[in-house]
């Protein structure tokens, strides 16, 4: 925040840094940002909930983000999502009870040439089938980050 001169318009940038450091936005964090940028907490909350990128819930150890952009949708993103949900027993936006994996969806990573695409942690994996994805996820969740 100091880098951006504690200016009010730096709110989104500040939330980005906060989420990058802690993985999600918690109340003490939001209160701190509000106080230092001199913005009402209600407005900080409003901005944090408006944008899809920000999350107010703690995330699992690993993240599996299924792209639901048009190209991936045509190429079977729905089946991918269904199979992951069935395998892990959680729906999109949820974290498995043991806290190891979060299943999320996103709108397009711009890697449509490889559709359907899933981002596991920060690796983009393309040309997936439900079986291949389950295999990959088993590999990811069995090893500690």
């Amino acid at each position, binding site marked *: 925040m100091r880098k951006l001169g504690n200016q009010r*318009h730096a709110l*989104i940038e500040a939330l980005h840094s906060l989420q990058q450091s802690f993985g999600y936005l918690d109340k003490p964090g939001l209160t701190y940002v509000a106080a230092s940028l001199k913005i009402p907490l209600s407005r900080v909350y409003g901005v944090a909930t408006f944008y899809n*990128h920000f999350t107010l819930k703690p995330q699992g150890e690993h993240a599996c983000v299924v792209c639901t952009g048009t190209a991936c*949708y045509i190429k079977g993103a729905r089946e991918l999502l269904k199979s992951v949900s069935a395998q892990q027993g959680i729906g999109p936006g949820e974290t498995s009870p043991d806290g190891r994996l979060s299943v999320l969806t996103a709108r*397009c990573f*711009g*890697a*449509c040439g490889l559709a359907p695409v899933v981002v596991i942690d920060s690796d*983009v994996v393309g040309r997936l089938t439900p079986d291949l994805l389950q295999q990959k996820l088993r590999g990811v969740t069995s090893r500690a980050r």
Partner: protein
Amino acid sequence: MLAEELKAIASQERDASASRTACINVCGAAGCHSLESNALKDALVEAAAVQGYSAETYAVRKVGCLGLCGAGPLVSVDPSGILYQRVKPSDAAELIGSLDGPPVERIRLDSSLPFFARQKRIVLENSGRIDPERLEDYIAADGYLALTKVLSEMTPLEVVAEIHKSGLRGRGGAGYPTGLKWGTVAKAIGSPKLVICNADEGDPGAFMDRSVLESDPHRVLEGMAIAAYATGASEGYIYVRAEYPLAVERLKTAIRLAERHGLLGNNICGSSFNFRIFIRLGAGAFVCGEETALIASIEGLRGTPRPRPPYPAESGLWRHPTLINNVETYANVAPIIRNGASWFAQIGTERSKGTKVFALAGAIANAGLIEVPMGITLRDIIFQIGGGIPEGRAFKAVQTGGPSGGCIPESFLDTPVDYETLSKLGSIMGSGGMIVMDETSSMVDVARYFMEFCMTESCGKCIPCRAGTAQMHELLGRFTNQTAGPSDLGLLESLCDMVKHTSLCGLGQSAPNPVISTLRYFRAEYEAGFAREGVS
């Protein structure tokens, strides 16, 4: 940096590349990057060293997008121009070993394919040819020549006139004449003036801007600097999606390098012109592609649009006169200045000049990024360049313009692509996403998919969009579940009309487009969704 210094760097770079026997270019854009092109590059460097080639004679470089993302990772070899596809690190030794002999046919990609031959590259001319992280590469490709030209030879008014004469129109989708926009900002009263680059490529299925930013970031910076000079602006902002970390990284590098060499900052190229560029990250909101919502987002607010007028050209970011253009629009500026407006104006059709970059994806053989002259037919794009539909399936429709566009059926494939004809067909040019669908796709389902997108992305400020999209989504669900009644079709049509004409911003106004166009061309599929006897 002065014009002479630029020339010196350019000739130095050209000498260096002329003295090399071959240069191996590995694609490092997001598609190939995710297929581990970095490991491939390391393997190639290692193989070259093992086989005794020195770095001076055989260089291995990381370059921007080579276009055919579906066949990545791609490798090209200069000067022979040989292309390789789906190259694995284990192929590295064989590839290097073939440098002095015949190419490796097993992984070779025919570069005379229509995919490459039918393209005309202006925006993407350096894509896949230069290392996006080296300023010298861009300068050697005539980079920043246009900026030094406008600073030393042209007045701001002359620059605006030149862009106007070229016939360039906004590449973000709406196609507003760029010269007119620049002229309005130049004439606006108030200071400082600001320049914004809209790189919030929210349309799912479009990746043109990402590719330009990753492959040739300096081109966008140069275009913005020229726009700032023409309009009298001193600060610029690039609003880029947080989902594109590689593009953000390369932009940051490019800005740093340009500032260090005096191509951005104070007294650019020894003139009295000052211009600085800042990056602002988006946070995943489709509506922020709308210019007033984007401005709100840069100000740190919720990204909701506001009624226009006043247009941003008069009262934009922090109420200053603001010029907003899309990445691809800025990328067209430098070549227009360099080669002249009349050169640009001879490409394309009567009212749509130049080229357009499309992101081809979906049910198509050659998925990837293409740049074609305006006026080419959809059939040529899909069946010649795109290589047709894979797995022997039949073509059904092509969707352009994303959630704001429409689906075009086979019978209209021979219409030339330009702003006017596409909107006549009920679609839009849009930012350039082009999704091909085969016979297995249900059009009602596609319409519902886009409606769900618009529903969740609606900012909620105006009621027609907030409530209308939810109602339409619900209605479309009845058709996909086959529980719809005959009156639902009429209701859907009147809702489309209402949302289209009463919404505040472009998101709502164009949200019904996918429904209207599929109703127009694929009405039978909707009628098949009526509840059957005994089913309710």
